[in-house]
Every structure is written in structure tokens, then in C-alpha cells.
């Protein structure tokens, strides 16, 4: 294994730092307990309460929740990032997820004026502008249209946006957690536009939310007619209020801000609206003082979720490295993993299903003997795009871009198994 020689050079330092931390009361990672057991395991020899007593009956949990032992698996906020929780974001606990579907209650939230609680009986969708006939739809109308389901990721354009100037937040939940991957059910936007009848000069749409932010974004007509969906369900049930109940836009592969929640109106026009969220915000300021505008597509990106700062290595010997990769330009074709800071790479195993514009799960089994690791992953997509390093991105974009930071993430794993968000030069 090419990593070996690199690792060997770090072994002594790794062990030394681990020993120092062990003195400070942090347990050294060991081989699995089973391998070292000398006396019987009370988890086996003692009768547990749950083996003796009746548990709760049906109907105690009419809508089930995770085990009480999983209460740490929650969305988390970084309070200093924003002015108030109603105009803020929280983060998906990527390090605690398995497979590719994000449970609805763990999907990160981003609101501009808090969560609108909309009575679906009072919700209307209006289509007007450059159409033959302005139309109004009820939710019942929409549920009578041909529907389909699709799994795709929603990534906030500002995901990893805090990291442009160097390593800032310690955990993939905070560095990469403004993303979720959900099976949406809804109707093609094209069906509604056809119903209204597009005029020949229809080139852009404006999507508008029914919340107090009235969030509005412009969408090119080509995309709208290709794969945009108006979804009323996620992961098999109605949308959660914080995800736009009763109706939201699903715009596969494109930045999350476009996926207008609580969608109430679509206006058809001939030019983009240059709305606040596509001029003063969600534009990418470059080093020369000019800004890229209408940067819709989310480029290929990946992150190792285990190990990571919130998911340290706990055992020497056999370990499973795991993570997510995704691309707004198509499918993930390959993910390479490095344990030595990008000098040597091995291709990870991609777990089926590998879907277009969906998060993809990857694994790499590896042996770890307490040496320091610099863990990275690098995604390649079906367009041939290769996830760049953060320094390669900065060379082109500078450090004031805020949005679209898809650079390669590095975790330093120390001899005691703890991981830290670091950057390499």
C-alpha cells in the first residue's frame, strides 16, 4: 500500500502525541474489545431490563421517533453565522447518516423569514406572465396531475462557504452539512406550463414563495422544461413545513436557493429578474472585484464523513472509511481517497444506487495502527469534472466568493483517533 511508507514516517510522532493525550485522560484507541476479553461480558451474562419487562404498546408512538440513544443525531446551528434563527441555516449531521437518503427530520434548514405554516386548503399556485392564460391551481389540482418520484440532492450554494480563508469549523456537519438527499414526489413543472401555454418569448421564469420572505429566484426556461419538479412529498410523506409544505420546487443539480419553498407563484418572463438573492446574494465575488452571476450548477464535490472530527477513529486495526460524493452535472463516476494528504490515492467503492444528481455513498476499508492520517476524497463526475483542491479553486476565484466552495476537504487524524479540519499548503 503506497500509504504505508508515508504513514511509517509519522508513526512515532503519532504515538507520542497519542501518549500525551492519554496522560490528559483521553483513552487510547485499542483493538476491538472482543479481541482482548478475559472475563465474561455482562452485556451477555446479565439479564437486561428490556429482556424482562414489557415495553410500550402500539399507539404510544403514533408517529415514531428515533431511539432515545440517538438524541445526539440532530441538525445543529452555528449561532454566530447569522443575525437571528428565523434568517439562518442549520446543518445536516452527515457523519451520523448511512446510505444515501437523508431522513426528513435531519434535512438542513435555511429560512429567510422563518418557517411558514401553510394550510394546504388555502394554498394556491398561480402561473402568470407570458402565458396564453393565467392559471390558479389548488393542491388538489396538482395531485391530479401525472406524478413521479426522484432522488436528488439539494445543496445550499453557501455550503462550505465559511472555509474559503482556511479551516474554520470542526466537523463535516458544519463544513458540508448544508446538503440533503431526498426522494421527492411531485409533478413536472412542464405539465403546468403547458397547461398555461408558453408564449414564444418566454425565456425565464420567476419562482416566488408564499412565506414572509417572498423568496424569489429566476430560472431559465430550458431547465424548467427539462427536469424541474414541483414536489408535495419527500421520503414518502408530505413535505415537512421547514422544507416548504405544501409545495416546493425541485431543481436537480442546481443551488438550493432556487428550490423555492412554499411555492405560490410562477411568473413567465423574457429576462431574469436580478432579484436580491441573485445579485446582492448568491453571486460569487472574484478577486478582481467582479462577481459571477447565475451560477446555478453545483460542481462535483465529496467529503469523508467517517472518520471526521465528530466521528473519530476508535479502534486500531480494521476500519471503514465512508463518505458522500455528488455532482450537479450528472452522476458520480469515481471517488478517490487519500490518507496522506493527496500524495497517493486509491479509488473507493461506490455503493449502489449511483443516481444522476444524487448523493452517492462511498467506502474504503483500511487498516489503521495509530499513525497520523491526512484524509481526503476527490470526486469525478460523468462530465469529466474532477473535484479541485481548495488552493486550485482559490487561484481562480480568490477568497471572497462565499458560494460554491467545492474544494477537497482534509481531515487530520491524530494518533488518538481524533480528527481535525485542516488545510494543506
Amino acid at each position, binding site marked *: 500500500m503506497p500509504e504505508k511508507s508515508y504513514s511509517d514516517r509519522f508513526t512515532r510522532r503519532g504515538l507520542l502525541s497519542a501518549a500525551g493525550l492519554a496522560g490528559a485522560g483521553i483513552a487510547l484507541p485499542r483493538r476491538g474489545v472482543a479481541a482482548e476479553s478475559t472475563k465474561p461480558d455482562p452485556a451477555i451474562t446479565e439479564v437486561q431490563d428490556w429482556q424482562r419487562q414489557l415495553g410500550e404498546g402500539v399507539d404510544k408512538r403514533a408517529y415514531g421517533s428515533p431511539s432515545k440513544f440517538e438524541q445526539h443525531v*440532530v441538525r*445543529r*446551528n*452555528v*449561532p*454566530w*453565522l447569522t*443575525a437571528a434563527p428565523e434568517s439562518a441555516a442549520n446543518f445536516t449531521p452527515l457523519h451520523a447518516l448511512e446510505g444515501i437518503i437523508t431522513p426528513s427530520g435531519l434535512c438542513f434548514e435555511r429560512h429567510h423569514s422563518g418557517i411558514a405554516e401553510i394550510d394546504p386548503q388555502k394554498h394556491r399556485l*398561480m402561473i*402568470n406572465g407570458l402565458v396564453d392564460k*393565467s*392559471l*390558479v*391551481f389548488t393542491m388538489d*389540482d396538482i395531485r391530479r396531475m401525472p406524478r413521479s418520484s426522484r432522488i436528488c440532492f439539494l445543496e445550499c450554494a453557501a455550503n462550505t462557504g465559511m472555509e474559503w480563508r*482556511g479551516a474554520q469549523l*470542526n*466537523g463535516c456537519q*458544519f463544513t458540508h452539512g448544508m446538503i440533503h438527499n431526498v426522494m421527492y414526489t411531485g409533478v413536472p413543472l412542464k405539465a403546468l406550463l403547458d*397547461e*398555461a401555454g408558453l408564449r414564444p418569448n418566454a425565456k425565464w421564469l420567476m419562482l416566488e414563495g408564499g412565506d*414572509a*420572505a*417572498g423568496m*424569489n429566484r429566476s430560472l431559465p426556461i430550458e431547465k424548467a422544461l427539462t427536469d424541474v419538479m414541483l414536489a408535495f412529498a419527500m421520503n414518502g410523506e408530505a413535505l415537512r413545513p421547514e422544507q416548504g409544505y405544501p409545495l416546493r420546487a425541485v431543481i436537480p443539480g442546481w443551488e438550493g436557493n432556487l428550490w423555492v419553498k412554499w411555492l405560490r*407563484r410562477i411568473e413567465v418572463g423574457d*429576462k431574469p*429578474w*436580478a*432579484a*436580491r438573492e441573485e*445579485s*446582492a446574494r448568491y453571486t460569487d*465575488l472574484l478577486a478582481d*472585484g*467582479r*462577481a*459571477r*452571476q447565475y*451560477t446555478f450548477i453545483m460542481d462535483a464535490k465529496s467529503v469523508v464523513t467517517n472518520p471526521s472530527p465528530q466521528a473519530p477513529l476508535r479502534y486500531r486495526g480494521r476500519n471503514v472509511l465512508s463518505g458522500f460524493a455528488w455532482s450537479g452535472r450528472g452522476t458520480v463516476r469515481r471517488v478517490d481517497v487519500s490518507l496522506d494528504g*493527496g*500524495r*497517493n*490515492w486509491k479509488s473507493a467503492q461506490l455503493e449502489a444506487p449511483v443516481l444522476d444528481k444524487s448523493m452517492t455513498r462511498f467506502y474504503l476499508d483500511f487498516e489503521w495502527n495509530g499513525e497520523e492520517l*491526512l484524509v481526503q476524497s*476527490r470526486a*469525478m463526475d460523468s*462530465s*469529466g*469534472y*474532477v473535484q479541485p483542491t481548495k488552493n*486550485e479553486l482559490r487561484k*481562480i476565484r480568490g477568497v*471572497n466568493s462565499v458560494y460554491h466552495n467545492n474544494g477537497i476537504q482534509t481531515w*487530520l487524524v491524530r494518533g488518538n483517533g481524533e480528527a*481535525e*479540519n*485542516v488545510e*494543506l*499548503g
Partner: protein
Amino acid sequence: MSNWARRLATLVVAGLLAHGAAAAEKPSKMGLGREALPAEVAAWDTDVKPDGQGLPPGRGTVKQGEEIYLARCASCHGEFAQGAGRWPALAGGQGSLKADRPNKTVGSFWPQLAPLFDYTRRTMPWGNARSLSADETYAVVAFLLNLNDIVKDDFELSDKNLTSIRMPNADGFFADDRETAEKKFWNRNPCMKNCGGVPKITSRAGEANITPDAKSVPKVD
């Protein structure tokens, strides 16, 4: 056939062909939804386009705007629109876009004025959205322009003159060019072995020390 008759015939045939093509492409209707009434469209179609389409009739002066701003906006955006806490600054920052810490405000960054009017009317004041009248919105926007040295103290903004205001950063934006400017990222054969020199750690999140405490989990009700 005379010349004009031939031309007419060509036009008729072309017209028929075009009509035929359009008819062939015409999507079938589901018969769902109903026509929106003019009053309904008027109630919701309140957006303003960059060219000023959709601006409501009205006017407001810098002086009127100052009063409204101090009463209804300054608690978040600061008395001089310099921002407060994490709330955005609305004035200042001109010439800072290339600086280490750019200050992106109405004066330094917004490329067009009509979207600012639209945004203010759409969602401000925060927490009491859509509570400003058209005249009040013109006045507040006029005051913001004045704070950014774009208009004089005696200026009155209205639906008639709004689109004549040129914003300082009007030329500061260009369409997404990643596929050309970042072409080198489409590299089908990235290095796999002995790539680059020995990596050196240049920054650490531990030193930044701004991550919320991992031990304290928010209360789950």
C-alpha cells in the same frame, strides 16, 4: 403569377407550415386549474423587474425616508445603515470589492435599483413584511441612495425616475463562465501516485476555535 402574388403565396404557405408545426407541438391539456381573475393576478403579481416593469405609482423624498428608516429599519441595519451585529450593512463599502474584507452594500454591490425596491417591498421590514406603502418604500430607497452618496439630500424618488438611477456597481457582474474559466478541472486523469510534495498543514479549525461545543446538543422536544 405576378411577383407580389408569388410572394403572397410563399407567405401563406410559410404561415400554414408554421401553424401546422405549432399545432403539432401543441401540448395536450389536462384541464386542471382555472383561469386567474384579474384581481387575483393584481394581488399577487407585485414584483418589479430590473427595467422598472411593475413599479407602483408613488414617490418619496430622502427626508421622508430618513424618518421611516430610523423608526422601522435602523434597529437592525444601524442608524447610518452601517449594519448591526450580523444584520447587513446597507451603506458604505464603495471601492472595497477587491479588498481583503469586501463590504457588499446597496452602494458598493447592488447592480440595479429596481430589485432593491422589489426586495424592500417584498419582505421588509423584517418581521412585518409588506407593511410599507408604495410611497414609504420609495422614500426609504431614496434615503438609502442618499446614504450611499448616489443622490442629493433634496432628491425625490418615484416610479418615473427610478430606472434612471445608475448604481455604482452596475458593471460588476457577469454570467457564469466556469465551463471556460475553470476548464482545467475537467481532467479525466488526475494524478494517483506520488503527487506533489510532502503536504504541510497551513491552517487548523482547532486554532480558529469557533465550532459550537460538540458536547452540548440542542434540546429536542
